[in-house]
């Protein structure tokens, strides 16, 4: 996670619960599964988690795959072609006038709005409460268990080293409460966020 926000892409489709973003290949860590991203919607800043990164099926790439040879220029050109990647984001809350709300925003962002990565400070602020964990666990399209674990690891990493253990411990307690009826699932997630 870098200190400066990075533009991930622009909104392709959106609803209050989730959005799809089109973008190009950016860098090694962007876009990253489980990363916190933000998009402005008027005075509201919607916060979401990246849960799926997909290379969109592309007829030209299909043709290139079947070609006899692939010169390096041809291969390099593919990475700069527009919108070859589609990213899915699960909306987990929003920030308005500095106040964090961990429920769905009143309106979705408009198409073509810019999505940025959240700074470590913003991630720390957003994850002071843990109500958003329920939203993730109930998500239908996202791999919920993996996503909870990935975003908690990133949220821990956004904090000073001394605070990480306590943060994960408190998140673990909240998960235990939410998943009290499903100990097997709980154990799977806890294993994934256990500090090394």
């Amino acid at each position: 996670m870098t200190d400066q926000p990075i533009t991930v892409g622009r909104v392709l489709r959106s609803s209050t619960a989730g959005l799809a973003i089109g973008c190009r290949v950016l860098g090694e860590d962007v876009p990253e599964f489980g990363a916190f991203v933000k998009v402005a919607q008027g005075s509201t800043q919607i916060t979401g988690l990246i849960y799926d990164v997909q290379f969109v099926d592309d007829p030209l790439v299909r043709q290139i795959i079947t070609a006899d040879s692939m010169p390096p220029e041809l291969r390099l050109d593919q990475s700069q072609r527009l919108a070859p990647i589609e990213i899915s984001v699960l909306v987990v809350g929003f920030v308005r006038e500095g106040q964090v709300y961990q429920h769905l925003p009143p309106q979705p962002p408009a198409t073509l709005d810019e999505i940025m990565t959240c700074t470590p400070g913003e991630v720390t602020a957003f994850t002071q409460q843990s109500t958003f964990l329920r939203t993730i666990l109930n998500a239908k399209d996202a791999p919920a268990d993996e996503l909870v674990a990935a975003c908690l690891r990133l949220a821990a990493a956004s904090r000073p080293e001394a605070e990480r253990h306590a943060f994960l411990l408190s998140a673990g307690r909240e998960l235990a409460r939410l998943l009290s009826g499903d100990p097997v699932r709980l154990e799977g997630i806890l294993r994934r966020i256990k500090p090394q």
Partner: protein
Amino acid sequence: MTLELNKVMNQVDALAQEAEANVKQASRQLDQAREWLHKYANRFEELKARASEVGAAIPVDEPLDTHHSAPEMPERFTVIGADGSAIPPDRHSATMYYLINTASLTYRHGSGEQPVAVSIPTLGYKSQDLYEGLKLVAGNLLDVRRDTAEIERLADAAEAEPRDIPLVALTDGTLLLWVLEDVSEDQRRKKIQDYVSHLARLRAAGAVAGAFISRPRYSDVLCLVWLAHLGKAASRDVIDKQTRGLADRGLFDSDLYLAPGERSAVFVSPSPVNNQYGEHRIGFFYVNVGNEDQTEIARIEAPGWVCGDPELLNRLHGAVMAQCRLVTPYPYVLARAHELAVITTDERRQLESFIEAALLRHGVRAQPSQKALLKSLTGGAKRAFRK
């Protein structure tokens, strides 16, 4: 109402029957034409003047049925492709404007470098942009502006390249501004001068300029063949009657003629507008850009200074073939330039909403016409629910 497919089915079958008959007839005519092409191949000298008069392909100094295989290309060479697209002014939209989006891809063969992709959108909205005299810049007038912007993009990209690597600059479609045939003489001259100035820039930049026409519909060479056969009896009307529905590519599209990679002889285009191109007078040849499994005949146009120089002509021929062997029998740089230039319906709608929002910010209340509004309500997805 929507199209009732069941009512058109009988006609579709009749259409296919008609097409079958036409194909057989065309095939016989083309076999005959091919025979004549060989028979009169060496009469190129005497056919020159008559071809000009009748409007047939004008031969240059080589037999009509010559064919050349693709030359070897050096390890390093660069091909640039440019394309453009436009949104015409629409009186049903919130305000009057047009948009021209030009794009280019610079592909440096053998360099191992990432190709350079550029796209440049330009909005025309001032009254001097939107009108030429009393005419709104739409249709042909907008096409000419787009074509000129395209060749300008090509020249800009060519000027950015180093001089020590062989350079070829390709555009999609023709180099001839034939759509100018219904504007005033003065306007036409000015527009051609403008267009041709970019061909001169390409030449000065050391680039070989060319245009790639996929599935060409021209019949210039067929006209020439009929002219040779009919001799003094030939007139445009007679030739047109006998070659109606036929295209030059049928003449070359045969296992017996152009092998993969081979090109035809060079001819000069008989288009009247060509007389105003001066040293850039446009010539053309046909080339089989396909492979052993699939014949694909394309027409390549190039200015006089390329057609008259065997080295430049070879460079153009070789570069087109190298590009057509990358992915499909179509120059890769042009496919990508098209991809970069094309404006999708979604993008167009988005631009329209940006413009409406900007107008509102400036206190201009603008709404699409009632017709446009109603169309957006009745068209598209809603029709999917019809029984």
